[in-house]
């Protein structure tokens, strides 16, 4: 899939201005534990938003709320101005833990979404093979997931979501298990897909450079209970060069915010446990 980005970019003209997903004062409790304190944000049509934040701050939970798997304890979450009440085929997700089906071959895992939609088998396989090829899984179509490496499983999960082509793609650390080289290829392909197909993408990542390379906006979450502590717009044309000084400046800025947050959280944590220890002894 070679895309003439120079030609497409003016057409695409960046993200749209209509809000696709709107979160208003989202709060999420798990039992007595407050996971998300107050999340408000608006994600526009065709926007690529990256979410970054300390481990355990509620990033996956936020994605599950958008996907409709979990319910917010307070607040409002809209898609196309309609409250989200449950999962739907307009939103596709790549889980942090891949979640492949061990009883299906790679090909059948990838065609699953189309099979459920009732797409003809031949067409489904054709569309699946495109993404199997682009994720470098050719030759493994008939393998079962138990025989694949972690990175290969992750690529199957990515291919599965891209093949059935939802309007909104929710990606939970989609490149976490990949080596740098493979990751760069997949980032290229994801960019091309996004430029080509005008999808809205919400991607969780731990890598600041991944975020600034791909996203229109980077949301930085605080540690648990989470709030949005920074919303950084990255107004640079795609495809981006990681050595671009503007990009580097954004990267440094976000890294600084993030490490300040992690430092704060860790020192609070240590103080609390030290206090508990003193009280215990």
């Amino acid at each position, binding site marked *: 899939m070679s895309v003439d980005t120079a030609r497409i970019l003016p057409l695409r003209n960046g993200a749209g201005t209509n809000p696709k997903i709107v979160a208003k004062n989202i709060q999420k409790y798990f039992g007595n534990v407050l996971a998300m304190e107050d999340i408000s944000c608006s994600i526009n049509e065709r926007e690529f938003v990256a979410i970054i934040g300390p481990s355990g701050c509620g990033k996956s939970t936020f994605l599950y709320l958008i996907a409709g*798997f979990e319910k917010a304890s307070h607040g409002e979450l809209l898609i196309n101005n309609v409250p989200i009440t449950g999962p739907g*085929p307009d939103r596709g*997700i790549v*889980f942090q833990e891949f*979640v492949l089906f061990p*009883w299906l071959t790679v090909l059948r895992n990838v065609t*699953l979404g189309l099979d*459920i939609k009732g797409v003809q088998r031949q067409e489904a396989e054709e569309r699946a093979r495109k993404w199997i090829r682009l994720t470098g899984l050719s030759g493994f179509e008939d393998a*079962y997931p138990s*025989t694949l490496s972690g990175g290969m499983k992750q690529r199957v999960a990515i291919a599965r979501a891209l093949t059935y082509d939802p309007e909104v793609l929710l990606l939970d650390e989609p490149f976490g298990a990949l080596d740098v080289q493979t990751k760069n290829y997949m980032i290229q392909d994801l960019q091309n897909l996004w430029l080509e197909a005008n999808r809205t993408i919400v991607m969780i990542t731990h890598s600041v450079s991944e975020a600034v390379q791909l996203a229109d906006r980077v949301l930085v979450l605080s540690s648990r209970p989470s709030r949005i502590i920074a919303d950084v717009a990255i107004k640079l044309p795609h495809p981006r060069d990681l050595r671009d000084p503007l990009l580097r400046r954004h990267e440094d800025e976000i890294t600084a915010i993030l490490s300040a947050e992690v430092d704060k959280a860790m020192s609070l944590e240590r103080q609390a446990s030290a206090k508990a220890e003193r009280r215990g002894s």
Partner: protein
Amino acid sequence: MPNATLSEPAAAFANEQRPRSMVYRATASVVVFALPIIAFLLIWEVAVRLGWVDATILPPPSTIVRRGWVLLNPSDLGQSILLAHIGVSLWRALISFALAAVLAIPLGFFLGLNKTAYLIVSPLLSLLLPLPAVAWTPIFLVSFGQGDLTIVAVCFLGAFFPILYSTIQGVRGIGRHSLWVVRSMGAGWFDIFRRVLLPGALPTLISGLKLGMAHSWRTLVAAEMLAALSHGLGFMIFAARSYMDVSTMFVGIVCLAVIGLLIERAVFGSLEAVTIRRWHGTGKLGSNR
């Protein structure tokens, strides 16, 4: 060079093994399986012939085989007593097993998916599961009297609870993320059942069926001893005691063991081979790939 002399026959062995490896492996596994049994039978035979044990209590294998041959009546299998007993026993065990599976599997899916129902039923289940089904025989004898109905009812109970329990555990063991994946693809209930719940629960379900069949087979013997009017391996064994016919008893015992083994290996073995062993071919302790 000592290395050369060592590696040469090893290489030759590997070359020779490769083209025949399938046949070789199959034969080897049969031999490995049969050898200890044959050795055991030989020791038994010798021990009886040397008079170390009393032949009227423990007849030698040769006598049991001869007795089995007579009961089998190979010249006219239509009139074979042994086959008639085996047929009736198999019929009883299978019908109870099938009934149990047909009722326990849907109920198991329901209880596995419905938390409230599970909370209500699970204490009952944990009492009934370990209870040997044979204990019910006298109660059924009171209401149904001797005969097939009582035997089938008891065997049914023997098979029902293991199947029910395994189905519930199989369903409950499915990760919620798996359900989320297909629900986010717009799957309705039937697709969710067919594409996730059923295959996801299948490994545990198969072991439940295996256990259910084994329980049904085990319970059968005791139930037949207590409640059969005629026929059945359990009946045959029990009836032989009136004539002190120990070799007939042993023929029955051997039949029970062999048929139990065949059901487990042939039926469930092949079921596993086309499902879970293909999915999880590698990486499990005890897998040979």
